């Protein structure tokens, strides 16, 4: 058994008994020098960097335009069309839209492009004031007073007189009773 094992091992050993060629070490050295980082061409590094930058730029510019503020679609809001932006009827707070938002809206309504769904900007107080102004044209809508950053001083505030309130007695009715009355 032992002899058999030894035979087997010596057989495998013989089969594996090859020597590296004389130029083996020289080839390793050549490969090491060839693959060292200092060997990499600066032109190739520059081209690789340029292509990465171009790819990043393309990704950024090809991204679809996203509205900067959430918008709500309505059925037929004559006042809220984007063409009204900047018209005298709109109050100042709407006219003070940021240029980015105006550019987004203008790009959507540019000639040659299909007319998008009407949109309402979400500056709701200003839009409500504009609607009110159109319905009652003779009564101009006043701007909200600007809130001062300074706190009011104590001696300038007027005293508020509080009168006692009269409250009717509270009557609790059950649901059945109220239904009967109706």
């Amino acid at each position, binding site marked *: 058994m032992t002899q058999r094992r030894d035979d087997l091992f010596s057989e495998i050993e013989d089969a594996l008994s090859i020597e590296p060629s004389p130029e083996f070490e020289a080839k390793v050295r050549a490969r090491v020098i060839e693959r060292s*980082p200092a060997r990499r061409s600066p032109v190739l590094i520059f081209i690789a960097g340029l292509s990465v930058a171009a790819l990043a730029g393309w990704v950024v510019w090809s991204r679809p335009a996203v509205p900067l503020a959430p918008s709500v679609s309505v059925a037929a809001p004559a006042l809220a069309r984007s063409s009204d932006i900047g018209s005298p009827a709109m109050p100042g707070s709407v006219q003070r839209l940021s240029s980015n938002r105006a550019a987004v809206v203008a790009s959507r309504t540019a000639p040659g492009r299909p007319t998008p769904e009407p949109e309402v900007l979400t500056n709701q107080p200003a839009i409500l004031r504009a609607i009110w102004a159109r319905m009652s044209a003779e009564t101009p809508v006043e701007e909200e007073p600007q809130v001062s950053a300074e706190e009011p001083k104590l001696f300038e505030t007027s005293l508020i007189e509080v009168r006692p309130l009269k409250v009717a007695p509270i009557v609790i009715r059950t649901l059945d009773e109220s239904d009967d009355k109706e």
Partner: protein
Amino acid sequence: MHEFAERLSGAVLNRADESAAEDLAREFEARLADCSKLAVRVAYGVLRQREDAEDVAQEAFVRAHRCFHQLRDRDAFRAWLVRMTWRLAIDHRRSAMRRSAREQFASCDDRAAPTSEDDVIAAERSRRLWTAIDALPEKLRLAIVLASIEGHGIREVAALTGAPEGTVKSRLFDARKILQEKLR
């Protein structure tokens, strides 16, 4: 040699001075001379082609060179080199087997064709042996190949494979048993 040392100084992040780089290059040269036979034989145990085995062994040395500052210990270097060479050889063989043109050559020995009757018998015996070794599970195959190189004992094989000695002993026993059955 000087250029080789310069490349090595680049590999250690330009921190070492020139003398340290030369020391490192000298150490790598020593490892290269010491372990080239081991690497070639390990690769040959998988590939059975001298040129391919040398190519794979050279690639393993190049990779070892890249992280040589972590592998300065001789035993660590040998173990790392054996495992890397084995893995590269397995990958090389798989890719070679995908190419139908080389498939026939992958299974035959590249030594000189046998002339006499004894040579024919020996070649047939060798062919059967390698067929049996190829059929072994990978862990058993690595153990028996390493045990057949440079007279490695169980302890050396355990150090090279990173497995416990008991595991190596068991693997060698299983491998021998399977081979004896197939070669009977």
